[in-house]
């Protein structure tokens, strides 16, 4: 079973995302901000990360840059999942090493389609 870390400061979004991911046969864990997520990744790299952009302490983009600098930090497939929906943000995320990008609001079909895109489903 593949493991996906859900990083979002909204507990509601984390809950919705976890339900969808568990439905797609993932085991999941949660982090409320980039720093928490980075600590969890240092302990154990997940297969996938569903990543919000705007969060307190450390935002999603900074987390992504720091993750990719870590040993084995290239391994996780990172899918952004954010309300930032303009070309400039998307381009920035892809350049920083994101594999896919979901614009909120999202539903099960979108998560499944995007995870298929990057070979996770």
């Amino acid at each position, binding site marked *: 079973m593949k493991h996906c870390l859900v990083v979002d400061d909204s507990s509601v979004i984390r809950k919705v995302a976890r339900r969808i991911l568990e439905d797609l046969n993932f085991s999941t864990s949660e982090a409320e901000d980039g720093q928490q997520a980075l600590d969890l990744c240092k302990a154990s790299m997940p297969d996938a990360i569903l990543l919000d952009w705007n969060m307190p302490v450390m935002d999603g983009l900074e987390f992504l840059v720091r993750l990719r600098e870590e040993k084995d930090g290239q391994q996780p497939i990172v899918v952004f999942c954010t309300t930032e*929906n*303009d*070309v400039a943000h*998307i*381009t920035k995320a*892809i350049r920083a090493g994101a594999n*896919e*990008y*979901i*614009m909120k609001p*999202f*539903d099960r*079909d*979108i998560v499944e*389609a*995007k995870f*298929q*895109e990057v070979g996770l489903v």
Partner: protein
Amino acid sequence: MKPSDYDFLQKFLHSRSGLVLSSEKQYLVESRLIPVARRAGLGGLDELVAKIRMAGSMELKDDVVEAMTTNETFFFRDKTPFMHFEQEMLPTMLKNRASKRRIRIWSAAASTGQEPYCIAIKLQEARAKTAGFRFEILGTDISKEVLEKARTGIYSQFEVQRGLPIQMLLRYFTQLQEIWQIAPEIRAMVQWKQLNLLENFVNLGEFDIVFCRNVLIYFDQATKIEILNRIAKQMPDDGYLVLGAAETVVGLVDSFEPVPNLRGLYRPKRATQVSVPASSLTGFTPRIRAIG
């Protein structure tokens, strides 16, 4: 909904569009047709059915058929056919049409346009190999309404996230606030025409590749057979037919046979087939030309 009304709708839809509506689809009919009734200023399904039972009101009849036959579609719905297009159909056609330099592709149930646009994107990505070739992509659908949407190439944020990799979204779409429009050069590659597959389509001409996915499932056996046989007549011997993942011609018609190991791909099979290249059938003699 009254059983007699449902019965009438079943027959009406079958004769107009070939749609087979089983007896447990009441919910589907209600959810699709109540909005049609409302838009027409009618009190409900009773009034809607009463109105289409009468002669005339062609527009309303069209609206009912449209509402019942329109289905949601994804970009690159099921990746396999597009992989086959890139790796098998296109290379073979480039070789087989090296002299004619024209390749015609038909998306027979184009709906809101995702399928023909995906074909156009694949061609655009392969353009280094297709120099000098002319491609024609025709998208047809029974519904005027979906074709109008297809023609604009405008999709919601939800739609562009289903099946479309983010890199392709960035490369081939322009953002207009919450909506996205496909690039003019991709739009220009596709032509559109309203067409009911039950009607004669001989005048569309011959197609090298026909995508006919997830539409035959709505027809009964006899209609499926009839449509497939007519499609076969519009294809050269080396053409390709692409069906949906859950569809097949096996046990249905003799006019097509599966391409071994390529799921969903079929080639026309002629009653008296002789295994010779298409070029010699048309009496074409290759010319000697300088290479370089």
